[in-house]
């Protein structure tokens, strides 16, 4: 017992480090209470340490705390992504003017982010249904508060109340689903669930309901149609740093959670024919369900985005659409598909963060998030606008950017598995997506700004961050072998 716990702690350093960071931030906040970004740098240091500790876990493939969680390449891959996203969010926060009035509360801000990171780390690693729920709630509760962090802004307040209401109901439904799943399988960890189902599905109807209810919960986190309704409102209301964090990190973490849960629990290990193929339990065609949802997400996300004027809201719908593309990889039920998802989220991380970052820079200077107000910016801030263009065409999926590689692999996986109709929908919606992405570009470059034409000057620091995002987007569009190798390597899950 005790050895298990002690061993487990040895494999739990990143999470511990996050908790320590969390505490340090609170204490530092109490001690410093200065209205500058010292606290940000402290937090950044904590995150860096955590990141290094995550990297140390490379190669591990083990279970900790009595099968509560797993430390395996799959989890490490996602933790790396989450840490990268978090680091960028901190850098964004340092540059954000929106947070300035709340400088005295940055301690709480970072603490909540730390809480979210902890929750997400657990989400990607947990193998126990209770821990899954707990991690889920951990992430949610922190993000509810963060969404309303700029609480004097009405939209922010509204976003947070909508978020928590929606989240509470969704997680309630999911919990009910979990209770049913646990009940019919009499197991609390996902391996047990699988073993029980493998022995025979006694209660198919209840199982369906349970799976659906769990999908409601995870779908809420991924913001996939038809459980996406909160996303636009919350994304628009939340401070832009948090919007970016929600759109990237918590979505990716939920994807990881879903992959692990479904792959471990709902797949028929006994009938594996080809390595890398996932046979599902007979009669349990949840991939059809996901295909349907993916198609809906791509259609609804892209179509609704067409009409948006607020850049954050537009990116919100775009991220809904991207959730659809990600689910496409899920539908394929092969390791190909999962690799494609992993490549996708990796690329998505940079390009989406990039788009949010440029939007934030503009919002800092112009105090607006309206795309219409971007007119003529291409001549006032050429560098930023070119970067924005690159991020947007990457989101569209045009070469030679990372976004193209992401789409290439997702489409490729779907085609190789014969999901032609889904790929066609994806293709058509990609074309539609071009419309709204390019509208931003059009506004920036094709119009003269009304009256004002003096250049917008951004400091060197913000440019450095821009390049840190821009370079991967371009580089991975041309040379992406390492990413693929990394993703392929990270396919390994504990117990599979």
């Amino acid at each position, binding site marked *: 017992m005790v050895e298990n716990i002690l061993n487990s702690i040895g494999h739990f350093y990143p999470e511990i480090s996050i908790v320590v960071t969390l505490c340090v931030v609170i204490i530092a906040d109490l001690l410093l209470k200065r209205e500058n970004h010292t606290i940000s740098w402290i937090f950044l240091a904590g995150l860096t340490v955590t990141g290094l500790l995550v990297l140390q876990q490379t190669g591990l493939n083990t279970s900790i705390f009595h099968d509560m969680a797993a430390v395996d390449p799959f989890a490490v891959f996602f933790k790396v992504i989450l840490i990268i996203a978090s680091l960028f969010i901190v850098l964004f926060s340092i540059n954000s003017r929106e947070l300035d009035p709340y400088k005295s509360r940055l301690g709480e801000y970072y603490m909540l982010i730390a809480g979210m990171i902890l929750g997400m780390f657990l989400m990607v690693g947990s193998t126990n249904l209770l821990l899954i729920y707990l991690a889920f709630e951990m992430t949610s509760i922190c993000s509810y508060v963060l969404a309303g962090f700029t609480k004097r802004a009405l939209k922010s307040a509204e976003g947070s109340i909508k978020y928590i209401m929606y989240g509470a109901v969704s997680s309630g439904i999911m919990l009910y689903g979990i209770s049913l799943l646990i009940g019919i399988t009499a197991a609390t960890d996902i391996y047990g669930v699988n073993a029980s189902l493998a022995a025979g599905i006694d209660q198919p109807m209840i199982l369906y309901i349970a799976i659906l209810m769990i999908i409601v919960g995870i779908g809420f986190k991924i913001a996939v149609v038809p459980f996406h309704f909160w996303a636009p409102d919350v994304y628009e209301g939340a401070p832009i740093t948090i919007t970016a964090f929600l759109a990237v990190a918590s979505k990716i973490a939920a994807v990881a959670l879903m992959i692990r849960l479904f792959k471990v629990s709902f797949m028929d290990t006994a009938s594996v024919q*080809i*390595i*890398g*193929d996932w046979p599902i339990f007979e009669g349990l065609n949840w991939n059809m369900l996901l295909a349907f949802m993916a198609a809906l997400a791509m259609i609804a996300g892209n179509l609704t985005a067409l009409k948006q004027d607020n850049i954050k809201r537009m990116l919100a719908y775009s991220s809904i659409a991207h959730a659809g593309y990600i689910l496409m990889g899920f539908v394929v039920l092969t*390791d*190909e598909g999962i690799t494609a998802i992993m490549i996708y989220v990796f690329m998505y991380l940079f390009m989406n963060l990039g788009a949010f970052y440029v939007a934030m820079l503009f919002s800092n200077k112009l105090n607006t998030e309206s795309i219409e107000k971007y007119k003529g910016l291409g*001549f006032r801030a*050429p560098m930023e606008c070119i970067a924005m*263009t690159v991020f947007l*065409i990457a989101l569209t999926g*045009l*070469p*030679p950017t990372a976004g*193209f590689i992401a*789409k*290439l692999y997702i*489409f*490729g996986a779907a*085609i*190789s598995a*014969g999901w032609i109709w889904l*790929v*066609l929908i994806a*293709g*058509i919606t*990609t*074309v539609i997506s*071009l*419309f709204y992405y*390019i509208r931003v570009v*059009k506004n920036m*470059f*094709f119009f003269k700004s009304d009256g004002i034409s003096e250049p917008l000057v951004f400091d060197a620091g913000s440019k450095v961050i821009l390049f840190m995002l821009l370079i991967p987007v371009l580089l991975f569009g041309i*040379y*992406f*072998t390492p990413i*693929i*190798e990394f993703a*392929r390597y990270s396919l390994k899950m504990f117990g599979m």
Partner: protein
Amino acid sequence: MELQLFGIGILTWIVFIPIVGVIIVLLLPDEKRNAIRSVAAAVTGIQVILAGIIFKYFDRSMLGINDASSFQFLEQYKWITVEAVPWVGKIEITYFLGIDGLSVLMVILTALISFIGVISSWNIGKMVKGYFALYLLLVTGMMGVFVSLDFFLFFIFWEVMLLPMYFLIGIWGGPRREYAAIKFFLYTFVGSILMLLVMLALYFSVAYTNTATGETIHTFNILHMMNPANYVDGSILAGVDTTWRYVAWMALFINFAIKIPLFPFHTWLPDAHVEAPTPISVILAGVLLKLGTYGLLRISFPIFPDGTIYFMYFMATLAMISIIYGAFCAMAQDDFKKLIAYSSVSHMGIVVLGIAALNTQGMVGGVLQMFNHGIITAVLFLVVGVIYDRTKKRGVNDFGGIANVMPRYTGVAIIGMFAALGLPGLNGFVSELFSFLGAFSSFRWITIISVTGIIITAAYILWTIQRVFLGKSPDEYLALPDLTAREMVAFVPLIILIILLGVYPAPAIELMNTSLSHLVELITNGGN
């Protein structure tokens, strides 16, 4: 045949030297406009010289098409390699460049038109730096497509052209430029997505076995895709004459037809042409449209010979409609640029008719027509550009009597127009002749109907000449200056080519003869 400079192959040079230009242009300060222009001119000038070297050293007797060893100036390096995975095999994307008789003319055309485009861009004054940076990027994309032998690389270059073109139309274009730009972008993008899907399907269907190591390797290599033996059993595109192969062929065809553009995928073209600045119209009509037919010949035909034969009549019918329809539409236009744009639809229809015939004459005629049409429309758009520069008007009915005012200009314009009309002695005739001759052997009635297109062509071209150049000159135009020296630099090489290839086309035909005969044989033998 290999030519290297500093250890880098000539094709890499010719493709990427504009990128060097882009970097230099971006480093120069905004104010040094002439320096920026000179860099662009120098870079494209070097391309012309390299194209000349290629022309000189190109071995006219090598087959190319599906045989890697008979491609010339070959360069192949590993680019993306993912080590073997149990159920897929090794994955390979290569940096694979080479030219054969099919592409060599296009490379020369691209180099030449790019250079002339730079010359005619000289008086663009709005954001010179951005303009030339995008322009040179576009040139890289175009050149890259013509020399890539790896589908992935081909696709990347194909897409790289999109964005610069979008900006060049959208920022430097006319009043409805944003509409035109987005229309161009969307049309082309729809096609690209279809091509992407087919590319992926091909990728998963094709695997070759490395003889040395015995590995099964999935590859984007176009040449491997042409070999039926490389198709994995049970994969989506395996077999001959299957539904999926037809679907794939059709998807590719739509992509290329949009680019060509064939009826009914052509409506982006008039808008794009009308709104684009002159040099961009020149590039668009001179090179970009050829990418469509080139793609058909490089990808669709040899990879899907079964589909090509199956859809032969379909292609020819669309080509026929394009020829007639484009000509009629051209006649109805009042806008000079739109008129030429529609004439491109008509003339590119002839290319498709020729290549759809799947015989040597038609194929040679078609490819030659690609080259000739590139030269001729370049001249015509430059002609419009010159008059637009001077009068800021483009309506055909706005002019009259220009012949008396600008004799040199009129001479150049009339040669260009006569070439478009298919006058013997000028290059357009030769290629149209062979295209029709070839087509007639394959489709009798379609060709007969298509030939009536040349009557309509004659009608609208003569009518245009009459309205613009003949008659009495209005007073406001009496003082228009004739062509300047710089404009002559742009025109003269093209005019010389028009006449030279009209009188003696053999040098051009020699270049492609062997390869195209081989291509015809390849298709008619079903890919073996």
